[in-house]
């Protein structure tokens, strides 16, 4: 029992409720959000260090022992993701102060932001599959509000589609839970894992597994990503950063959790399917990233490529590959947050979203240009930056498992990431300045936020050995589900 587990959910929840009372006092809202963000980071770091020392923490809600009550489970994987969420969302929050217009701030931007955090961290920490659905919905409803907030024509065009996709996938989620409950009679994930192993994961359970895969793939943008590039282009840059860094990662987390804990008995079917979905995602994502000429779409397709990459690590399934998937997921949250913040800075500096209207920004904004360059290298996986260790581990694990073709596709997608982002770097920062004058904007605060994230990206790369210590603890639980089950069922 450890009450620290509920704090990462409780702090943003209370903050959101408090913020509702100060609709017109934007400065006060900002202040409260900042304090709560700092608190959140501190508790998350505390959580990680406790899990590191004591192993998996559990919290039984209302004292009802598992499998009857709802449990919160803090294994290293969840704790690390909660910490990264706290860090990235804090950076995005600071970036919002400068980039979100006042009318949006006045209409409850900050409370929705906090509710989104509740949903994201809750999804990471819960150990009950129906509770996962509830936290998914909390996250999605806040994202509906954030994506439509402001009511520009583009937003009004994209939001109904985004809603429809997510409602249909949530419906399938409930249906999958219903089938699962009928088949094995429990909803606690650890208990589910035991029961599924006992019953041998036959035909019915495989169908349920694939149904879950469809649901989570829709949310993560794994293969079923057709909605993502359009929807994520609609809201302002700060919201894009939040979505790109966090939302798809929650879907990925759910895929990794279900397919390392529950549906592990027939990897020939499920994991092969994930592997091919990952490969197709990487190929199509690469095509999109190379083909488009407006900045938001290029960045969105880069999100899709990395989703494919992490899923590929899961599909390989060896301990190395799982460690790599955890490492790469952490790196990707940080790097994608940074990428969208830099993208937002570039757009407001150039005054346009189209690459053809940009050029010569390096003269006026050399720091931003070089930060973007470092980020590109990190995303491609050049040592000593943060993307390197994860990529090496995933590829090595995949080669151990004998997946040569897929490894080549994964490496090829890295090249396409390089090509697409260097294209942005070349067209936006080099070349001739456009004839129209650049808009005069104050980007100092946003640049400072981006600089801190760049330092974190470099630090995570240089300190990879130190980070690996934690990542390996997370990977161990993923590779041996028994540790997770023992911590909850206590037999």
């Amino acid at each position, binding site marked *: 029992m450890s009450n620290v587990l509920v704090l990462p959910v409780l702090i943003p929840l209370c903050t959101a409720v408090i913020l509702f009372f100060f609709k017109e006092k934007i400065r006060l809202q900002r202040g409260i959000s900042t304090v709560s963000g700092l608190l959140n980071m501190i508790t998350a770091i505390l959580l990680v260090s406790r899990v590191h020392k004591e192993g998996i923490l559990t919290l039984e809600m209302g004292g009802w022992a598992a499998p009857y009550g709802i449990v919160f489970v803090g294994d290293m994987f969840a704790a690390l993701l909660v910490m990264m969420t706290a860090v990235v969302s804090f950076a995005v929050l600071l970036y919002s102060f400068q980039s979100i217009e006042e009318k949006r701030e006045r209409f409850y931007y900050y409370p929705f932001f906090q509710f989104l955090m509740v949903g994201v961290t809750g999804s990471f920490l819960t150990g009950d599959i*129906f509770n996962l*659905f*509830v936290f998914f*919905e909390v996250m999605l*409803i806040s994202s*509906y*509000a954030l994506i*439509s907030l402001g*009511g*520009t*024509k*583009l937003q*009004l*065009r994209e*939001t*109904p589609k985004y*809603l*429809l996709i997510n*409602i*249909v996938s*949530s*419906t399938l989620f*409930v*249906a999958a*839970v*219903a*089938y699962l*409950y*009928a088949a094995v009679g429990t*909803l606690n994930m650890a208990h589910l894992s035991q029961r599924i192993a006992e019953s041998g994961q036959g035909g019915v359970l495989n169908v349920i597994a694939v149904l879950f895969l469809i649901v989570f793939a829709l949310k993560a943008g794994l293969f079923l990503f057709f909605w993502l590039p359009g929807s994520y282009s609609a809201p302002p840059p700060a919201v894009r950063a939040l979505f790109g860094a966090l939302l798809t990662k929650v879907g990925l987390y759910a895929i990794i959790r279900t397919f390392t804990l529950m549906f592990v008995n027939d990897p020939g079917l499920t994991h092969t399917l994930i592997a091919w979905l990952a490969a197709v995602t990487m190929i199509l994502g690469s095509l999109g990233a190379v083909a488009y000429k407006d900045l938001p779409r290029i960045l969105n397709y880069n999100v899709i490529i990395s989703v494919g990459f992490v899923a590929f690590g899961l599909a390989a399934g060896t301990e190395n590959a799982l460690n790599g998937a955890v490492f790469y997921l952490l790196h990707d949250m940080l790097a994608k947050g940074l990428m969208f913040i830099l993208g937002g800075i570039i757009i407001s500096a150039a005054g346009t979203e189209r690459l053809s209207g940009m050029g010569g920004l390096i003269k006026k904004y050399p720091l931003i240009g070089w930060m973007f360059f470092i980020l590109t290298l990190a995303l491609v996986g050049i040592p000593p930056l943060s993307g390197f260790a994860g990529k090496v581990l995933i590829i090595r694990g995949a080669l151990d498992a004998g997946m040569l073709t897929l490894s080549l596709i994964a490496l090829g997608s890295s090249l396409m990431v390089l090509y697409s982002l260097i294209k942005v770097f070349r067209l936006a920062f080099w070349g001739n300045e456009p004839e129209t004058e650049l808009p005069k904007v104050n980007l100092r605060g946003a640049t400072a936020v981006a600089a801190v994230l760049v330092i974190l990206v470099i630090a995570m790369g240089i300190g990879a050995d130190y980070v690996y210590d934690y990542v390996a603890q997370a990977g161990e639980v993923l590779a041996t589900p028994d540790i997770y089950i023992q911590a909850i069922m206590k037999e």
Partner: protein
Amino acid sequence: MELVMALAIGILFTIGVYLILSKVLLRIILGTSLLTHGVHLLLLTMAGLKQGAAPVLGDADSYVDPLPQALILTSIVISFGVTAFYFVLAYRSYQGLGTDEIDSIKEVKE
């Protein structure tokens, strides 16, 4: 009883999918609403349509499983909220874009 429920669920899903595939935003929303109703019935049926007394209170030979009802209640509340939001959004889209036809919404430029 299961057969009747299965047919009802099937009909709800059919109508829901048909409405979602139509071109007017309002019909799509009604479609999602019917779809969630269908899935709630599915949850109830899949957990077993038992005959028995209410759990915890008093003695009886058999009890009803209370969990599916709790799940359905949660899911109903969520779908109620989402549907309400969707309606407001549809109205706002109609105000902002001047149409509720999917085809003409698609052609809206920034």
